[in-house]
C-alpha cells in the first residue's frame, strides 16, 4: 500500500519534471527557430550592406553610361547595361506570347488528358535543365549550326527556352486565381469561350501575371552561364557600342561581371566588378518592388477591386 503511494508519487514527480522539461524544450526549440530565421534575414541585410559598401564608390554617371575600357582603368558599363535590357526585351517578346498561349490552353481548355500531361511534364523537365547545359545547346545549335554567331539573338533564344516554363506557370497560376463566377457570367451572356477568356478572364489575371513577368525579368537580367557562349563576352568599342543589331555580339552586365574577372586585363577589375555586382543587385531590388506595385495597381485598375 505504502509502496503503491510511493510509486504514484514518483510518477507524479516524474510527470511534473517531464512537463517542465517539455516546456523547456519547447521554449528552446522556439528560440532556435526564431534565431535561425533572424540569422537568415540578418545575413541578407549584411549581404546587401556589404555590396553597397563595396560598390558605392564605383557608381558614377560615367560608370553607368561610359564605354568599357579594354586595357586601362576607368571604364564604364554603359553598353553592357543596354545589352542586358535589349536581350531581356528580345527574350520577353518571344517568351510571353508562347507561355501565355500555352498557359491559357492548359488552364482553360484542357484540364485533363494525355496532351496536357505531356505538356505539363515537358515544362517541368525544361524548368530543371541547368542553364549551362542550355548554354552549351545554344552554342552548338544557334551560334554554330545556324550560323548566328555570338549574338543578342542567340542569347535571347537560349534564354527563352530557359524561362518559358516559369512564365507558363505564372500564367496558369494567375488564371487559376480568377473566380469561376467571372467565366460563368460571361458565358451566360452568350460569349464564346475565347471571348470569355479575352474579355472576362484575362483582365483580372493581368495583375498577378505582370508581377510574375517582372520577377522573371529580374532573373533573365541576371542570367550568366547560358549567355557566355551564346551572346558573347564582348562589345564593339567604336560608335557601335549601343547596338540594336540582333546578330551582333552583346555582352550583358552579368556576363561582364564574370568575364572582366576571368580576363583580368584591366587594372581596376575589382572596381568594375563591385560596381557591376551592385548595379545587378539594385536592379533585382527594383524588379522586386516594381513587380509588387505594378501588379497591385493593374489589378485595381482592370478589375475595379484591390
Amino acid at each position, binding site marked *: 500500500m505504502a509502496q503503491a503511494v510511493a510509486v504514484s508519487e514518483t510518477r507524479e514527480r516524474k510527470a511534473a519534471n517531464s512537463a517542465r522539461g517539455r516546456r523547456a524544450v519547447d521554449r528552446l526549440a522556439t528560440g532556435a527557430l526564431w534565431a535561425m530565421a533572424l540569422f537568415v534575414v540578418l545575413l541578407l541585410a549584411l549581404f546587401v550592406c556589404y555590396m553597397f559598401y563595396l560598390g558605392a564608390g564605383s557608381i558614377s554617371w560615367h560608370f553607368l553610361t561610359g564605354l568599357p575600357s*579594354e*586595357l586601362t582603368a576607368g571604364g564604364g558599363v554603359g553598353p553592357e547595361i543596354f545589352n542586358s535590357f535589349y536581350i531581356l526585351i528580345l527574350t520577353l517578346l518571344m517568351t510571353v506570347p508562347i507561355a501565355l498561349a500555352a498557359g491559357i490552353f492548359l488552364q482553360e481548355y484542357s484540364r485533363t488528358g494525355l496532351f496536357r500531361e505531356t505538356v505539363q511534364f515537358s515544362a517541368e523537365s525544361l524548368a530543371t535543365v541547368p542553364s549551362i547545359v542550355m548554354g552549351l545547346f545554344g*552554342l552548338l545549335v544557334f*551560334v*554554330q549550326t545556324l*550560323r548566328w*554567331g*555570338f549574338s543578342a*539573338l542567340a542569347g535571347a533564344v537560349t534564354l527563352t527556352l530557359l524561362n518559358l516554363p516559369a512564365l507558363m506557370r505564372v500564367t496558369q497560376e494567375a488564371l487559376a486565381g480568377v473566380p469561376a463566377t467571372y467565366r460563368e457570367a460571361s458565358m451566360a451572356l452568350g460569349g464564346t469561350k475565347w471571348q470569355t477568356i479575352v474579355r472576362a478572364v484575362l483582365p483580372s489575371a493581368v495583375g498577378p501575371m505582370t508581377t510574375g513577368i517582372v520577377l522573371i525579368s529580374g532573373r533573365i537580367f541576371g542570367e550568366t552561364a547560358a549567355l557566355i557562349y551564346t551572346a*558573347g*563576352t*564582348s*562589345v*564593339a*568599342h*567604336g*560608335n*557601335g557600342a549601343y*547596338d540594336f*543589331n*540582333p*546578330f*551582333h*555580339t552583346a*555582352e550583358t552586365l552579368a556576363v561582364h561581371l564574370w*568575364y572582366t*574577372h*576571368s*580576363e*583580368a*586585363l584591366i587594372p581596376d*577589375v575589382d572596381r568594375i566588378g563591385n560596381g557591376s555586382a551592385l548595379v545587378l543587385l539594385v536592379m533585382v531590388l527594383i524588379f522586386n518592388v516594381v513587380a509588387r506595385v505594378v501588379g497591385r495597381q493593374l489589378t485595381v485598375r482592370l478589375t475595379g477591386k484591390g
Partner: protein
Amino acid sequence: MSRTALAALLLGAALAAPAVASADTSLTAAGSTALLPLVKASAEAYQNQHNDLKISVTGGGSRVGITQVAAKAVDLGMSDILAKGYPDLVDHRVCVVGFSVLTHPGINVKNVSKKQLQDIFAGKITNWKDVGGADVKIVVINRPRSSGTRAVFTQTIMGDVPVSETGLTEDATGTVITAVRTTPGAISYAAFSGTKKFEGGHYTTVEGIAELSIDNVAPSEENVQTGKYPIWSYEHIYTNGVANKDESRFLAFIQSNSAIIHQLGYILFRDMKVNETDR
C-alpha cells in the same frame, strides 16, 4: 486584314534582320589572352580612326580562338599555337611573344634549372626550400586546356612530363597574375604582355610578382630574340578562308603598328635572330 498585316510585318522583320546584319560591317575576334592586349589596343586605335567598322574582341584562350573561327562563330581567331588539322584556316602571324615563369615575391628564389622547373610543375618538388628558397609550400597555378600559353609552356619546358593539376586553374593571363600576386608560394606562367610593363623606354616586371630565370637566363626581350630563353612562340591570327576586305584591313593595321606591339611587351619579327623551328 489586321492579322494579315501583322503577319506581313513579322515576315518582313524576319527577312530584314539578316539584311541589316550584313549591311553594316562588324568584326569579332576571340582567343589567346596572351595576344588579347595587342588586338584590343589595335581595335580601339582602329575604331578611333575609322568609324565604318565595329570590332569586338574577347579572350577565352587559344583553343577557343581556333575552334570558334573554324565554326565561323567569330571572324578572327587569336592563338599562341598552330591550328593543326584545320585546312580551311589561314594563318596571319602577328608578332612573337615570350612567356615568363612568375612567382609570388615572398619565396626568395630568383633562378631555377629547367629540371627543377619540371619537378615543381610535376608536383615532385612541393616546397620552395628545396630549391633554395623560403620554407613556403608551392602552389602550382595552371591554365586550363583551352590555353595556348599552357601548350607552349608544356611543349618547351615539360616535354613528356605530366603537369600536376592539384593547384588552382585560372582562366586567363590576367587572372594568373592576380592569383600569383595574392597566393603565397604560387608559381605559374604567363606572356610578357601580362608580366611586364613598358615605362621610360624599358620593361619592368609588374608589381606584386617576381619573374624567374631559367638556367640563369633571364626572361628578357633580348634573350628571346637570340633564342637563349626557351619559352616563346609566334602569335597567330586565323581567318576562316582567305581574309576578306575588312579582315585584311584590320590585320594590316595590327601588323603595321610596331610601336604598340613593342610597348605592350611583344617582339617584332624583324628583331628575331632565330626561327621557331630552330628552338
